[in-house]
Every structure is written in C-alpha cells, then in structure tokens.
C-alpha cells in the first residue's frame, strides 16, 4: 500500500504555514499546544487540506467510545516497524486537530489517526483511509452527544461504500451493526464487559439473546459474526489459530483488547503479530493515564474513566483490596453536566477498598456509595484523601476534567 507522493499545491502549503503560525502564536500566549487553533486557521484557508495532507499517507482511523487514544498509540508503535508514522498522539481528534497533526508529518508513510465518534464519517470521507478500527460504542456524555444507537447508524451510513478495510469488534452488537455496511471487514473478538447499551437488536429492536460469549437476535437473525482474530487471556489468536503473547506496560483486560485490535490492523499492513506486539511494549502512559506518580510521599496511579463502561473496565484492573481508592467526579462542560451515569456504575465492585471521594460532584458520589452500602470518606481535595489513606499504592480514578485537575495538582 504505497502512498501517493504528489506534492502539496501552493495554496495548501500556504494554509499549512498559516496554521503553524497561528499555533505558534497560541502557544506563545500560553493557550496549550495551539494544534486545534492552527488546524482551524489552516482549514479555513484550504477546506480540502485534510484530504490533501492525507493523500501522501496510508491512513488508519481509530474510533470508539473508550480506548481510542491508547489503541491509536499501539497501532502507531506497531506500524513504525514498517515505516515512519504521523499521529495525533495527544488526542486532538476532531478535524482541526487531525489536520494540524498531519501537517507536522510530511516525511511519514503512515497516518494513524484517532477520530471522535461523531466525526468518523466525515473524516473517513475526506482522508480515504486504508483501514478503520472500531472498538466499541456505549453511553457517554448523553446531555451533549447523540444517542448511542444514532451514532452507530451514522457510522453505518458513512462506512457504506467506503473502500477501507474495517477492523471491528465482533462482541459489540452496535459496532457490528455499524460495520456490516462495509464490504470489507475483519472481525476481532475482544469482548464487551459493558452490555447495557446492547440488549436491544440494533437492526430490528428485538431483545438480544446472549448465550455465553455469543449473541443473536431471534427475531431477525442478526448475530455475532465469526471472528478471525481474538483476544484469549494474555494472547492474541491470529486467523491461522496461532497464539502470540501480549506484553504491555499498560494494565487491564481493556488494553489487551486494544492490543489485539492493533495487531489485526498492523497485520493488514504486513507487520507480523509477534513484531507488532513486541513493539507495543514501548507504550507506557498515554497522556498521563496509567501513570504512577509520587505525591505527598505516596505512590498514586492515575486512571481516567469517563463513562460507565470506562469505570467498569477500570474497576477490573485496580489492585485488590485493601488498596485505597480515590474517586473524583466533575460535571463541567467537557464531562457532560449530568451525573446520572453514576447510577449505571456498579460500585459494589469496590467492596473492601477504603474509599475517598473528591471532585466538584463529591456529594453525588457520596449518595451513590451510601446506596451501594459502601463505607467512604468525603474529602475536600486530593491532599486530604492521600493523607488519610492507609499504606500502599493509591488508585485514583477520575473523569475527564477531574483527571486534568488531578494532573495539575500532583505535578504530572
């Protein structure tokens, strides 16, 4: 899959230059990396710039509710075995941020791009990807975003007629529904711990039956496709049935699932699963997530969980009781201003852990934990929680802006 090497037009070059200048000004003003503002300026000067920048690259798109930033990193690392890669590694995943990231990678062969769920169809049309990885879909920020099934519907429409190879999770009925419109799918069985958004058949509305790992709709026959790749414990099973060990510095089942999808994508570009999986060892913390930091004389592991499915996966990777756990929840714009999702999370899974509650919405969490019959302590801030926690590494689980607050406070 060689890229096209036609040079950029003068207009596109000008747009890239103007975008870089705007980003530099924004950085100098202390407003973050400037990548989004730079991308916006560049796209205004040349609306087709994203497609032109991508024209030089073999592009992989990655989208999902959870795990897209990490999986993008894993795929990028795997493909580096075969050539230079440009990626939006910091998670700026809407068109402006993606444009900005690609503008910085003129020497790359591959573009590995995380895409916000709502923009997948648009970006997939603009950049002519060689592959699209779809991991999962579940409820997230519902007071702002589209309904989950509507998102699946939009993916489905966007993928119909797209020539990319779609690498999709066979265990998520919404993802299968979305991907089935593509003529060219590789199914990967990576599991689905959170099932509460997929009891209803996406095709006909019937109730899905779930015998064991399988799922099917008795009314219309929509069912789990036969996967060619699978996650099996600590191994990836390839289409020939060979098992390749997963070695990651990132914790948890969800990351092994991400590695499995990444291996399947890398194989489509000729990278052997063993090579791909060995390279994934290099990925440590992703934008501060999973990082262990020292704070107040203690080790804190920082875990980001933005929605019910994310919290469920996080509970399954923390150290066992009596490891202390700090929970932090905000409800600012970027989090969604509604906290009702807390009631979709099964907090009885934390039984035995000493619990400390912080964040803007600590009282919502306090009532939630009271009803789950957990003992907990409400603290004003992370310092107080850390000082109160019994010995051992502390797991800190926070949603989006609470996680940013936390990183600032602990100097990460």
């Amino acid at each position: 899959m060689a890229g096209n090497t036609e040079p950029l037009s003068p207009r596109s070059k000008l747009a890239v230059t103007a975008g870089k200048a705007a980003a530099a000004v924004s950085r100098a003003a202390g407003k973050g990396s400037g990548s989004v503002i730079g991308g916006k300026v560049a796209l205004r000067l040349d609306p087709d710039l994203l497609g032109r920048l991508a024209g030089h690259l073999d592009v992989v798109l990655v989208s999902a509710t959870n795990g897209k930033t990490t999986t993008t990193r894993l795929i990028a690392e795997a493909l580096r075995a075969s050539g230079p890669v440009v990626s939006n590694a910091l998670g700026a995943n809407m068109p402006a941020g993606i444009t900005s990231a690609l503008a910085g990678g003129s020497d790359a062969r591959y573009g590995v791009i995380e895409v916000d769920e709502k923009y997948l169809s648009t970006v997939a049309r603009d950049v002519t990807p060689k592959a699209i990885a779809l991991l999962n879909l579940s409820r997230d920020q519902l007071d702002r975003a589209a309904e989950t099934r509507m998102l699946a519907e939009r993916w489905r429409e966007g993928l119909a007629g797209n020539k990319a190879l779609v690498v999709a999770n066979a265990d998520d009925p919404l993802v299968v529904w979305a991907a089935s419109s593509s003529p060219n799918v590789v199914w990967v069985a990576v599991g689905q711990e959170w099932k509460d958004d997929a009891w209803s058949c996406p095709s006909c509305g019937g109730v899905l039956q779930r015998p064991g790992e399988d799922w099917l709709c008795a009314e219309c026959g929509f069912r789990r496709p036969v996967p060619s790749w699978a996650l099996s414990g600590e191994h990836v099973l390839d289409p020939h049935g060979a098992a390749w060990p997963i070695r990651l510095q990132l914790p948890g089942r969800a990351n092994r699932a991400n590695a499995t999808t990444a291996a399947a994508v890398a194989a489509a570009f000729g990278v052997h699963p063993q090579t791909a999986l060995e390279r994934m060892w290099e990925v440590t913390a992703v934008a501060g997530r999973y990082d262990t930091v020292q704070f107040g004389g203690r080790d804190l592991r920082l875990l980001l969980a933005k929605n019910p499915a994310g919290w469920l996966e996080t509970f399954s990777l923390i150290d066992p009781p009596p490891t202390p756990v700090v929970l932090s929840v905000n409800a600012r714009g970027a989090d969604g201003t509604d906290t009702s999702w807390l009631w979709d999370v099964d907090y009885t899974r934390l039984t035995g852990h000493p619990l400390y509650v912080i964040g803007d919405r600590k009282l919502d969490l306090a009532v939630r934990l009271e009803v789950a019959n957990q003992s907990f302590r409400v603290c004003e801030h992370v310092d107080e929680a850390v000082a109160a926690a019994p010995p051992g590494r502390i797991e800190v689980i926070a949603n989006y802006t609470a996680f940013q607050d936390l990183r600032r406070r602990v100097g990460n």
Partner: protein
Amino acid sequence: MNDNSLRLVWVYPDLLSTYGDQGNALVVERRARQRGYDVTRVDVRSDQPVPASADIYLIGGGEDRPQRLAAERLRRDGGLSRAAGNGAIIFSVCAGYQILGHEFINDLDRQEPGLGLLDVTSGRGQAGRCVGDVLADIDPQLGLPQLTGFENHQGVTHLGPTAKPLARVRFGHGNGTGDGTEGAWNGNVFGTYMHGPVLARNPQIADLLIRLALESQGLAPVDDRWYEALRNERIAAASASR
C-alpha cells in the same frame, strides 16, 4: 401483602434505562431494607411478562425508538395495566411517564397510544431540549419537601382533568407547557420529567412510595446526611443558574 415484604418491579431496563434509571430502584430497595423490610426486586426485560401482583413498579427514560418498542410491548403484555387496576404504586420518569399517558409522538413522528394510566397527553416541543437543574414545589397534598432534579427532554406533556401536577417549578421547565407544572399524579400513579435517579435527590419520594405500598403512616428514620447535603447543594445550584 405480607407484612414484612415488598415486591419491587423495574420495568424494561433493556429499553428504558438511559439516564441512570437503575438509581430509583436502588434507592427504594436500600431505604426499604434499612427499615427492615424484605425486598424482592425483579428486573423485567421486554421479552418477559410484567407480573401484575407486585407492590411498586418503576419505569424509566429512554431514547425514541426504545420508547415506542416499550409502549408496544406493554400494551400487548397488559401486566402493568392489570397491576394498576390492583392498586399498585407506579412511579414513571420521562419516556416512561409519556407511556403511562394516553398518547405520545413516537420516533416515526406518529401518535403512539400509551397505557392511559395517567390522564396526560404528550407531544414534542418546538423550542429545543429542556436541559438543566430544576427546583419545584411538590403538590402540598403530598406533604413533601421541594423537588430537586435534572431534566433533559424535548417532550411536552399536557394534563387532563383527572391528573394533578406533581409539582410547580421555580427553576426549570418541567412539563414544558409554559404553565409551570412539572409531572403528574393521580392516586398511586406518578410521573415526572426529572430524569434518571430522581429519588436519589428526593429520598422522601422514595419513602412515600414505600409508605403507600405498606399502607403505613410513618417509617423509621434513616441516616439522610448525604442526601441532605446533596439536596442543599443542588437546590443552591438550580437557584444560582437561572
């Protein structure tokens, strides 16, 4: 009913559980157990019959298509209507509230018949979604403190002569009719646009449902410290934001 037991049914969690609706079931269950009652909770999926003999039924919110499917299946099943006929307590939220009425507008933009257990009729508002914290005064006849909740809906619900407003809004939209009403009730059937876990912010409503089921005047007090702290915070937030 048996003196010491409470049968609780959560209707169709597979279709109507979009905004933490499980919270209402958890709060009722917890507060009844804290008073020493033996709670049997049954989560009834939409391919299962709704038992007609339970004490309290909870029905939650959902997206447009699941709402239509739920209404179709509840009409066909008949269990919830029989339960209402038996005098059961029914507490409904958002899409579930609309389903209990005479009709609502479905995802295909058609009028969909409801169960007619509340004298209300729902349509779709023109003015965009109502989203945000709400503060309202509950019907004095119910003897409860202020209602605090979060709304997120486009529906508008008109009350007929036999439905009383559950509350009058101070801040927020409620039924969306512009007359300041929020929710509806009649006898043992209640409906509200305060979504998801509204009982977590209003444990006194959960206690009312338990009292009605037990035909009891009072319940032993429980530790309401965190509920009260949350209520105070949210009441202040609703006042400050409008």
